[in-house]
């Protein structure tokens, strides 16, 4: 979506093509001439959280910026740009002094939809310094530090000069706490990580999802492991069925037969599934999948739509069958007594069981599927 403000890229480039090329060039020259690359370097820490520069620089959240003015826009190899950025390139975006200046002034209004979630540099002089600095960094990463002429190099130390470290006495000690360590977390940071949900619904995001929408997502992203009906392929976990099996010799503990709370399904799918691609589902997709898992367990019908609004209306069948830890009341622990030391059992020991299926021990080469135990 194109931003309607006057300086969006499209409008600007259309305007620029109407102007004489010479005028454009001189405008660019003017911007660059004013910039001081060393001053720009000092401003770079505000970019460094997302961008690396210098030899061996890698992509961080943003692409590495070596030679960014020498390469076509949005062309760093191995970096996945936003669709908005790619579209701008198709529409003719080229990084030069003017376009960089505009982007850095307000990235999100210049290219609406860009992933560069950065407020921008309001000061024109600082932007010019930054552009001059970016232009100095070559594709191989040299130029972060200004090349020292050979004469200068001869009488300076062979080690490249580093930024002087700030004096310890000038560093800021935060107010909070006892030892004043760490820094305050920003609300955006807490929001990015705090995804947990409780049975009372605390943490549920806005949104909704239907059984119908869940079918497709489940079939394409979950069924290959958990089975089309939640029956589990091979040894992958079973997600549905197993009702009234909890007292059986082989109980089947599933979302439907065992899990006490629906919030756990939403929370777990959102934090850990699909296995191998965690955190890739949107909130609506997680609502849909949660609804669909209810459906696979015969707990709702196919018309059902789940949202934060009706979340607490769903009672899970096994909710009342959990008790708190009372192991210490079991006979073997409750009676604290000295254990027997002599003639504790009659007769001599009789073997009642041998390592049941010797062959399940690894390296034994036996029948794996005959194994009777489980770890989770």
């Amino acid at each position, binding site marked *: 979506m194109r931003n309607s403000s006057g300086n969006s890229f499209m409008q600007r480039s259309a305007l620029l093509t109407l102007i004489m090329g010479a005028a454009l060039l001189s405008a660019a020259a003017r911007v660059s001439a004013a910039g001081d690359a060393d001053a720009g370097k000092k401003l770079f820490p505000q970019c460094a959280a997302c961008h690396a520069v210098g030899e061996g620089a890698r992509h961080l959240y943003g692409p590495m910026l070596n030679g960014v003015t020498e390469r076509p826009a949005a062309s760093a190899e191995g970096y996945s740009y936003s669709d908005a950025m790619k579209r701008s390139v198709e529409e003719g975006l080229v990084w030069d002094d003017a376009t960089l200046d505009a982007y850095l002034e307000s990235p999100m209004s210049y290219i609406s939809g860009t992933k560069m979630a950065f407020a921008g540099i309001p000061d024109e002089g600082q932007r010019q310094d930054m552009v001059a600095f970016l232009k100095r960094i070559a594709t191989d990463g040299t130029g972060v530090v200004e090349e020292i002429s050979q004469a200068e190099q001869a009488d300076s130390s062979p080690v490249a000069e580093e930024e002087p470290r700030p004096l310890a006495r000038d560093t800021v000690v935060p107010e*909070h*706490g*006892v*030892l004043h*360590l760490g*820094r305050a*977390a920003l609300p955006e940071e807490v929001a990015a*990580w705090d995804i947990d949900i*409780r049975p009372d619904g605390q943490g549920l995001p806005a949104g909704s999802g239907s059984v119908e929408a869940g079918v497709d997502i489940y079939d394409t992203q979950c069924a290959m*492991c958990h089975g089309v009906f939640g029956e589990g392929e*091979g*040894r992958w976990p079973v997600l549905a069925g197993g009702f009234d099996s*909890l*007292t059986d010799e082989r*109980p089947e503990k599933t979302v439907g037969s*065992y*899990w006490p709370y629906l*919030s*756990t399904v939403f*929370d*777990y799918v959102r*934090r*850990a599934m699909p*296995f*191998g691609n*965690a955190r890739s589902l949107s909130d609506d997709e997680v609502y849909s999948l949660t609804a669909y898992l209810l459906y696979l367990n015969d707990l709702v019908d196919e018309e059902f739509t789940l949202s934060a609004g009706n979340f607490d209306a769903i009672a899970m069948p096994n909710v009342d*069958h*959990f*008790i*708190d*830890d*009372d192991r210490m009341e*079991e*006979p*073997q*622990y409750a009676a*604290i007594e000295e*254990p027997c030391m*002599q003639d*504790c*059992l009659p007769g*001599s*020991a*009789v*073997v*009642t*069981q*041998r*390592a*049941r299926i*010797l062959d*399940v*021990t*690894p390296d034994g080469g036996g029948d*794996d599927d005959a*194994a*009777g*135990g*489980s770890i*989770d």
Partner: protein
Amino acid sequence: MASSNDKTIESGARRQALKNGLRVGALMGAAGGAGLTVSGRAAAEASPDPLITEVQDWNRFMGDGVDANPYGKPSVHESDAVRRTVSWLTAENKSSINFTPLHKLDGIITPNGLCFERHHGGVATIAPSDHRLMINGLVDTPLVFTMEDLQRFPRENHVYFLECAANSGMEWRGAQLNGCQFTHGMVHNVMYTGVKLKHLLAEAGVSPRGKWLLPEGADPSHMTRSIPMEKAMDDCMVVFKMNGEALRPEQGYPLRLVVPGWEGNMWVKWLRRLEVGDKPWHHREETSKYTDLLADGTARRFTWTMDVKSIITNPSPQAPILHGRGRTVVTGLAWSGHGTVSRVDVSIDGGRNWKTARLDGPSLSKSLHRFYHEFDWDGSELFLQSRAIDEKRQVQPSKEALRKARGTNSIYHNNGIQTWHIRPDGSAENVEVS
């Protein structure tokens, strides 16, 4: 003069003969696996031991110099002392488990490379400079710490065992796996260096309504568990070192939670967040998993403490007795999530009679303890058992008692007494006896 010379020669020859005997015995053992035993007397008649009479390669030729292994490795002769897995337990190895080779170890410390692993989304690779620990929820100031920040808190060193709640879980329905590595190898014991959790929480300022803590991992499983605030404020730690060196990646590098005496799943690895709340979260690993299903279909939840337990590590199915009758050392490990182990008893007759074993090495709270029981084996079959008693006077129960109280579907918290059947040839098998 002459007589004293004679004596020297005589005693030298005796020593030689003795060594030959041992050597042959060892060879027999190695070759025959469990099949033994050779009489020491008969071997004494044999020819001199070439390992003594001949100059060996390692006596003559120099080996590696310094720096052959900038990070040292075990001897090539210890290639058997490795973690092992049981492939049929899980669908694939990114969410799986392997086991510590307890029968290869002695003392109480587990070497870092042998500590068992359990992952739910593979081993996360995190540069310490990229790692952050956040504290949020019911606190005065939500905070973010870098690894450097954490180094500035007061550090402590403690040795603690970590046992998976499912250790011995495959044995609920009866003897199944042949080797203490597989029946009991989901435990390790390490000296941790780190910071008490209470110092970190004080920095953020916990609200009086904050009764529960939710640690969360940075790996793709984003592991979470609910921990009551009293435990968090008591002995829990956030650690960055194990046995003196940086945490191993598979143990949560660069940062893990330590919850002494409580089940291993709570010791969140790759720890990135601690949230303070007023209620527990009932997340997947404390509902679907790590709840103990009882015979009547109800399930216990929040069964955090690892109860008193012990295991004889040698002899055991992977470590048979190779030396024949005579002096025999039985050794093993004991631990309790309730504190120190005060005593271990050993039975060689399947629980009829017990003798108190010798505890050796440091006795630390919520740490493994090492015990030994030395005796003269007459060569007849043995039913070896060990029984630990902790500082709260809790006695390790029999498997029968546990099954009577819980049934066989609990999976977790099986701390029953283990029996090894030692056959007259010295081989050992996992059995149950009445």
